C-alpha cells in the first residue's frame, strides 16, 4: 500500500510540478495514438463497410486476414515494421526508424484490423431490410454507404475505442520501432518499462496511472459522443 500511495503522490508531483519530460512523454503518447487511431478510422471504416457489403472471390480469406490482424502481437508488428524501415530494408531510404512516425505506422498496423474487423461486424448486424429501405428512399451508392455507417455509429465508436485502447497501451511495437529515445520517441508505456527495469517502481506506477487517466479521458469523450441523446 505504501508503494501505491507513493506512486500516486509521485504521479501528482510529476504532473503538477510541470515536469517537462513527463508532459512530453504523455503528450507524445497521446499524439501518436490519436493519429494512428484517426488514420485507422478513416481507412478501417470504409474497408470494413466494403468487406461487409461486397461479394468477390477471396473475400472470406481477406476477412480471415483482417480478423487475424485483430489479434496481431505488437512485437510481431514491430518486427515487421522494423525490417521494412531498417536502413537496408525496402523503405529504409525514408529514414523513419526510431521516429514518432515509425510508432504511428506500427500502431496503425495494430489498430487498423481492429477498426476494420469490428466495422464489418457492425455493418453486418444491421437489419438487411434497412438496407433495402435506404435504397427505396432513393439513395445513391454513396448516400447508401453514408446512411449505413451513420446507423452503425454506436458499434463503430466502440471499434474506435477498442483501436485506441490497443495502441496506447501497447509497448512492444513502440519499443522496437521507436527505440525509446529520451526526448524523441519515449512514450508512456516504454518509459514505464524503463523505470520498472531500473527499480523505480513509484515512477513506473505513476506513469502507469497517468496512462490510465489519459485512456479514461479519451474514452470518456468518445462515450459521451456515443451515448448522447440515448435514454438510460
Amino acid at each position, binding site marked *: 500500500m505504501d508503494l501505491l500511495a507513493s506512486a500516486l503522490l509521485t504521479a501528482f508531483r510529476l504532473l503538477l510540478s510541470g515536469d517537462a519530460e513527463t508532459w512530453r512523454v504523455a503528450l507524445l503518447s497521446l499524439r501518436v495514438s490519436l493519429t494512428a487511431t484517426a488514420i485507422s478510422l478513416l481507412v478501417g471504416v470504409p474497408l470494413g463497410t466494403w468487406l461487409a457489403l461486397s461479394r468477390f472471390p477471396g473475400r472470406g480469406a481477406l476477412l480471415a486476414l483482417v480478423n487475424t490482424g485483430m489479434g496481431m502481437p505488437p512485437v510481431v508488428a514491430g518486427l515487421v515494421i522494423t525490417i521494412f524501415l531498417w536502413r537496408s530494408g525496402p523503405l529504409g531510404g525514408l529514414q523513419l526508424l526510431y521516429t514518432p512516425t515509425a510508432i504511428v505506422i506500427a500502431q496503425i498496423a495494430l489498430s487498423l484490423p481492429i477498426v476494420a474487423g469490428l466495422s464489418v461486424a457492425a455493418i453486418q448486424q444491421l437489419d438487411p431490410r434497412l438496407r*433495402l*429501405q435506404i435504397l*427505396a*428512399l432513393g439513395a445513391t451508392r454513396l448516400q447508401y454507404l453514408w446512411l449505413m455507417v451513420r446507423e452503425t455509429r454506436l458499434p463503430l465508436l466502440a471499434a474506435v475505442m477498442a483501436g485506441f485502447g490497443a495502441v496506447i497501451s501497447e509497448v512492444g511495437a513502440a519499443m522496437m520501432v521507436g527505440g525509446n529515445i529520451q526526448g524523441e520517441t519515449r512514450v508512456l508505456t516504454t518509459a514505464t518499462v524503463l523505470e520498472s527495469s531500473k527499480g523505480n517502481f513509484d515512477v513506473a506506477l505513476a506513469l502507469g496511472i497517468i496512462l490510465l487517466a489519459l485512456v479514461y479521458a479519451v474514452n470518456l469523450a468518445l462515450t459521451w459522443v456515443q451515448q448522447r441523446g440515448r435514454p438510460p
Partner: protein
Amino acid sequence: MTVGAPRDAPLLELRGVRVRRGGRTILDVPSLDVWPRGVLAVVGRNGAGKSTLLQVMALLLTPDAGDIRFAGERVTVGRNPVGVRRRMAVVFQEPLLFDTSVFENVASGLRLRGVSRPEARERVQRWLTQLGVGHLANRQARTLSGGEARRTSLARALVLEPQLLLLDEPFAALDYFTRQELLAELPSLLEAASSTAVLVTHDPTEALRLATCAVALRDGQIVAEGQTDEVLLAAGLSPR
C-alpha cells in the same frame, strides 16, 4: 394483363418478369400494368410471391428475366436506377426507422434528394400533422409505440409525394384499432399525395376496403386479376 382503369399510359409495366431462387422460379409474371391513380391490391397466401413482386416493382430486386418500364421509360435495375426510384416510395412490413428523431426520419428522403431545408421543414411538418404525429417531431424514433412508428414510416414515404407508393403489408403488425384508423385514413392520404398505390396484403378485408382492382398470386404466378371482389372470389380468398 391489365389492371386498373386504363387512362393515359400505364405508370408501371412488367413484361415477362421471372425471378429464380435456388434453382426454382419463385415469380413468373408474363404481363402486368399498373395504371395511374387508385389502389391495386396484390393478394395471396404466405409464400405466394407478393413481397418478391413488390421488390421487383420497387426496383430493389433484379429479375432474372423480363422488362420493366416506369412511365414509359425502360429501367435497368442492376444499375441502381436512382432517378426512377426517386419517383417511388416503399413502406415495408416493419417501420424500419433510422436511429434518429421522428423529424429527421421523415426528412431523410427529402435530404437524399437535395430538397432545401426550408421546403423540407415545411413538408415534413405538414405530413407529420396529416398523419397525426406532428407533436412527436422531436422524439427519438426508438421510443415510439408501434402505431406511432407506423405513422412515421408512412409520413416518410408520403412526404416524397411519390407517383407510385408501394405498401408491403404495412398494417400487419398493428393492433386492431390502430389498423382500422390507418385503413380509414389511407385513401385521403393517397389523394393528398396524388399517388398511385400498390398494396400487398394477405388480408382480403384490407384489399376490399382500399383497392378497386387486384391481382392474386399463387406459387409466384398470377391466378386472377380484375375487380377486387371478383379476384378474391376466383382465388378462393374471399373473407367469410
